[in-house]
Structures are given as C-alpha cells and as structure tokens.
C-alpha cells in the first residue's frame, strides 16, 4: 500500500502543472460554494431569528420592524385593555437619501428597552431616561462603517447626535442607531405616533390576532426578518444550483484527468496487480492524486473566498450582508470537497477495474 501511495504521489508531482490547473478549477467551484454559504449565513444570522418571549403590534401587512408602520398612542391603551401586561412603543424606520447612506433608525424608551432587547455595550454607557436630547447609541457595524466612537457624533437625517455608546446584538440591529423615542418623533415629525408596540408573549394576545384600532395585527417579534429571508430564498436556490453544477464539473474534470493519468501508467499498474496488489491499491493510487489536487483546491478556494468576500458585500436598506465563514460552513465545504474527491476517484477506479488485465499487460 505505501508503494501505491508513493507512486500516486510521484506521478502527481510529475504532472504538477496539470495538478495545479486542476486545483484552481476545483478552487473556483469551492469559492462559489463558500461565498454562497457565507452570504446566506450572514443573512440568516442577522434576520432569521424569532424572540419567543415577545410579540409586536404593527399596522397589518407591513414590515413594521423595519419601516412602513405608523400607530397612534390609542393602540397602546387598546393593547392593555386586551391584557398586555407590558406595552413598549418603538419607532423603526430607515432614513437616508439613497440605499448607500441609509441608516436603520430606532426610537426607544430609555427606561424600558433593556427589558426587551438583549444587547452588549462594547464601549460607552447606555442611554438613560434623564439624558439630554440628541444622544444616540450606535450598533457596532454602523459604528465601524461611519468610524464613530463614544464622544463623537453621528448624523441622522441631517442632524448631529452625540454618540454615548457602541453596542452589539449580533443581528441586524448592529446596523441601527438608537435614539430616544421623543427625539425620533421630533426628528421624523411624527408627533406622538410610533411604528410598533412590543408586548409580552404568552398572554391573551396571540400572533395572528388583529385589533380594529388603526388596522393593527399581532405577530411574533422577529417574524418580519424571517419573512424577508424567505424573499431571498429563490436567489440562493439558483446560486446553490450553480455552485453544485460547478462542483460536478470540477469532479468530472478531475476524474477525466485521473483516468488519463492512470491510463498512461496502465502497464505498470497491471504488472503490480498481477504480482498481487489488490484493486483497492488502484483506488489508493487514484485517491492520493485526487486528494492532493482537491486538498490544494480547498486551500486555494478558501483563500479566494476570503478575498472576494472581503471585497463584495450586498447592501440593502441600511444593512450590508457580508460573507461570514464559521466552522459549520468550513465543515460543509469540506464535505463538498470530499464529494468532488469521491466522484473523481470512484469513476476512473470503476473504469480501470473493468479493463482486462491481460490486455493491459500487452500495452506498449
């Protein structure tokens, strides 16, 4: 067996230029697969989550957790009448003149938001109910994009706000700027209106319920995000199909090359078989070459994906979707590479095993 490993390895070294070209071919398909999964992971991490302990009341049919919903204060009274033990108003909208400079804006009640929104202060201190106007907490991704820190200022809808904190949630709110509800109402000219009310789950009101006041519907907190993710599903399905076809193409190219490289060595391989080497040795000979090429392709694909992912982000309404690579994606991609390796090794192995040994020995 070690002899076959050595033979396979030396043959690959002999054809190293070809091996490198095949590795690049595999790396391209892997890069596509990694990028696809990377973007999908970031999209899912940021948007696809549900907060089981809270519901929201928003204008029916809207994506009130992002924009588009406007409710009057009377809705809060209605919610309490229907048994909500806690009613927290919030403003959610997207401000900016274009998608490029859009900012997700949240107006919050400083004394209540901590109860409903888990976050981590990275620097500075939280907004307080007795704070002076025009102060803001900035999500970490937005802070990085705008290069702001506590003590600095951030412009929202053309007006400067003093930054008191940079926070992190791990979801899309890392791109948000949080200001007091009063500031938000004044900034937007909304009077006493808000976007949504957050209420506890597990009480009388349930997802799907509607209130006649202002045509309000109740939904799970986070549901708007999961629905948005579903909107992108057809795009990811198409890209997934492309990534898989590229993988199949790479596997066929590698199988073809391994088969031909083995064909060039057919006489030597036949002699080895005739003196007692099993057909598994033949598989090993092919597998070591396939593994060498696929392994190099995997490393190159990873580097390419890291490079392309750092250059291209998908931007939609204030949120930039980046390619994110975690262990799960690396493992899935390793599985994808293993699939290429298996397909490219098994096909030529079956092909070679079916050939007549006597004829192979006669080959010149």
């Amino acid at each position: 067996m070690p002899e076959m490993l050595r033979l396979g390895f030396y043959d690959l070294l002999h054809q190293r230029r070809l091996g490198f070209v095949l590795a690049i071919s595999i790396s391209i398909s892997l890069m596509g697969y990694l990028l696809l999964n990377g973007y999908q992971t970031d999209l899912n991490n940021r948007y696809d989550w549900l907060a089981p302990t809270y519901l929201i009341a928003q204008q029916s049919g809207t994506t009130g957790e992002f924009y588009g919903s406007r409710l009057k204060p009377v809705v809060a009274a209605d919610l309490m009448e229907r048994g909500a033990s806690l009613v927290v108003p919030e403003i959610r909208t997207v401000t900016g003149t274009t998608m490029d400079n859009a900012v997700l804006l949240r107006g919050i009640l400083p004394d209540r938001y901590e109860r409903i929104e888990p976050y981590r202060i990275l620097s500075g201190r939280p907004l307080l109910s007795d704070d002076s106007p025009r102060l803001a907490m900035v999500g970490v991704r937005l802070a990085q994009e705008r290069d702001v820190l506590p003590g600095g200022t951030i412009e929202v809808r053309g007006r400067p706000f003093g930054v008191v904190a940079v926070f992190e949630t791990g979801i899309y709110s890392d791109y948000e700027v949080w200001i007091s509800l009063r500031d938000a109402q004044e900034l937007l000219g909304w009077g006493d209106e808000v976007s949504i009310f957050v209420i506890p789950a597990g009480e009388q009101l349930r997802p799907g319920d509607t209130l006649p006041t202002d045509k309000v519907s109740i939904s799970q907190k986070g549901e708007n995000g999961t629905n948005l993710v579903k909107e992108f599903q057809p795009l990811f399905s198409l890209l997934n199909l492309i990534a898989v076809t590229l993988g199949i193409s790479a596997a066929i190219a590698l199988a073809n090359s391994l088969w031909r490289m083995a064909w060039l060595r057919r006489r030597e391989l036949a002699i080895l078989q005739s003196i007692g080497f099993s057909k598994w040795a033949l598989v090993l000979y092919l597998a070591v070459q396939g593994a060498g090429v696929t392994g190099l392709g995997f490393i190159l694909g990873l580097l390419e994906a890291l490079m392309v992912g750092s250059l291209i982000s998908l931007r939609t309404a204030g949120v930039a979707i980046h390619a994110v690579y975690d262990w799960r994606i690396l493992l899935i991609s390793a599985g994808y590479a293993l699939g290429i390796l298996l397909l490219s090794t098994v096909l030529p192995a079956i092909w070679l095993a079916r050939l007549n040994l006597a004829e192979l020995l006669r080959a010149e």
Partner: protein
Amino acid sequence: MLSVFLFALKDLGFDLLRTLFSAAGMAAVTMGALLLNAFSSSMGTYIYAAPTSSNLLVVDSTTVDPSDSDISPAVLQAAYDLGPELIGRVSPQFFRRLWVSEKLVQVRAAPPEDWPSVYHMSLLQGTWPSGAGQAMVGEGAAAGNHWQIGSVLDVAGNALTVTAIYRAPGASFSAIWLPLEQAQAIFGTERGIQCLALQLTAAADPEEVRRRLQADPRLTNGMAVFFEDAYTHNNIQFLRDVYGLMFAVSIIALLTVALGTYSLTALNLAERAHQIGILRAVGFSYFQLRLFLTLRALLLAGLAFGVGLAVALVYVQIQQTGGPVYINGFPFTFYLGGEQIGLCMGLTLGFALSGAWLSTRWMLNDSVAQLVRI
C-alpha cells in the same frame, strides 16, 4: 484547414464516450454561466432601463422607502401653484409595501384618470377598478402569484377583488393598484399621500421646473423633487450589488473552461507524444499540430456549449412557465436572448482557445527525436 478540421472531428468521434464525458464537465459550467446571465439580464432590465418617464417626483428624500414619506397639503398646493402652463397633471400617489399572499408587494393608489397618462398603464384584461373592494394587479404580479380576474386579495385585512390586469413599466409591473379614494377609505386620509408625480407640459423645461419647486419654502422636512427615473435608479443599490456579483461569478465560472481545456489538451499531448512525434517526422508542421489540437478543443467546447445551452433553455422555459421569481419585492423573469447566448458562447470559445493555446505552447517545445522516443 478543412483536412485538419475533419481530422479533429474524427479524433473526437473515435473515443466518443471520453469525448462526451469531457464535454459533460464543460457543459455543466456553461449551463451555470448561461443561467446566471439569464437571471442577471432580468435584473439589468431594472438597472439599465431606458428612461420611461419625464415626470417629476416629490417625495421625502430622507426616507429610503416611500412608505414612510408623507406629503402635506402645503406641498400639494406648491405643486398646483406652478400653474397649468408648466404642469399638465399633479398626481398624488399612495404607496405602501405590504405582505400580500406571503409576498412583499407594492400597493399603490392614484386617481384613476392619471393611470394611463401619468403612469403609462394599459389595460390587458378586465375593467379598471372603480368601486369599493376592487383592485388591479400588474401582469408581473398576476403571473408570479397566479392571480386572475376575480381573485380575492387580502390587503392589510381587506378583501379586494381583482378586476383588471394591467401593463406598466418598472416596478409598477408587479404592483397592486387601487383608486386613491379607495386606498384612503381603507388606510385613512392621514398619511394618505406618499409622493406626487408631476406630468409636465411640452412647453416646460423640466430642470427649471424642478429647481423652482425645490426652492419653494413649503417643501420642508426633507421633501425633495427628483426626476422619476433618477429616483428609481438611486434606490436599486441592492439589485446592482447582486447583478455585479452574478456577472462576476459567471465570468469566473467560464474561466474554468480555459482550465478544463488546458488540462484536457495537456493530457492529450502527454498520451500521444509518440504519435505527435511521428506526425512531426512525416512533415506535419508545429502550426498544423497546434491548429489540430486547438480545433479539437474548440469543437469540444462547442459541443459542451450546445449541451449546456439546451439544458439552460429547458430550465429557463420551466422557470418562465412558473411565473417571475420574486426577490425583495421585484419580479424577475429568466430571459436568455441572442445577446446573452452570444456573449457566453464567445467567452466559452475564447477561454477554450486560450486554454488550448497555453497548453500547446508548453508541450510542443520538445524535439521530434525526443517525442518519438517516448
């Protein structure tokens, strides 16, 4: 030349199974690139659409989505005050982005008399909605959601019957439209107008009118006047990003054709070094051999492209039958036209040519004596 071509053709036909196996690998790539092009060309219709309107649009420029814009009566009056010699029509428009049948759809409303003239809408089926509980849907929305005349839509808890299917340019293609009066009856008159579309007269200078209205002191709180097409183009950054990504991926995918051709030709040369030496010895020139190998690679790439194209066309046909694919509220219909096919074919053959050329450049440097000894 013809003899070399026939020789290459016969050579490919000699081991048909291997030829088909090699072509299958490349066909998968070309199919992928064609599908990406079919999809991105659909996006291109929004990104690179020719101007369809010379309307001006008054909207809150500080809101990314017009749903949050709110036109006050003072702004409406400012538009009317420009006078009939400059403004043909002032069309107040209601705009929301709502979940209808589990899809995010634009719900718009304007006075019915403005539909054909200001919004360039034409009736395809049915009758324009006029009474309560009636709506019309764009042909994109109808195809994507299998909505027909008589279908009942749940719009923000209101049952609306589809009375018409219309055709219109841009994103309106996939929207739901109502008479303005009815939208305000359902959603209320507060925040009842999100933007104003102004149709200019033939005598008006659009830039001058835009500047005059923008300078009006009644346009406060972020209200701005845009050319309608420019506004739409500014708000499709997401599409541009995806379009760019898809185009880049399709080119990179086709690059693997060059790599595949390189490896196939290199192995061909390694396998046939002895025969090539004999051909050189009996008088075949370096150029003729290179031509043979290049033609062989091109024929293989051409075969692969044909197979890839056939599969892609079937896929596109299936996608078109199912209606447009919705992403972020925009409907996309896969489209593979002559331009996309020509581009992909050109790139496939070009990459195959470069792969074969690079491979033969390295491998044909051996002398005849060296080759016949192998």
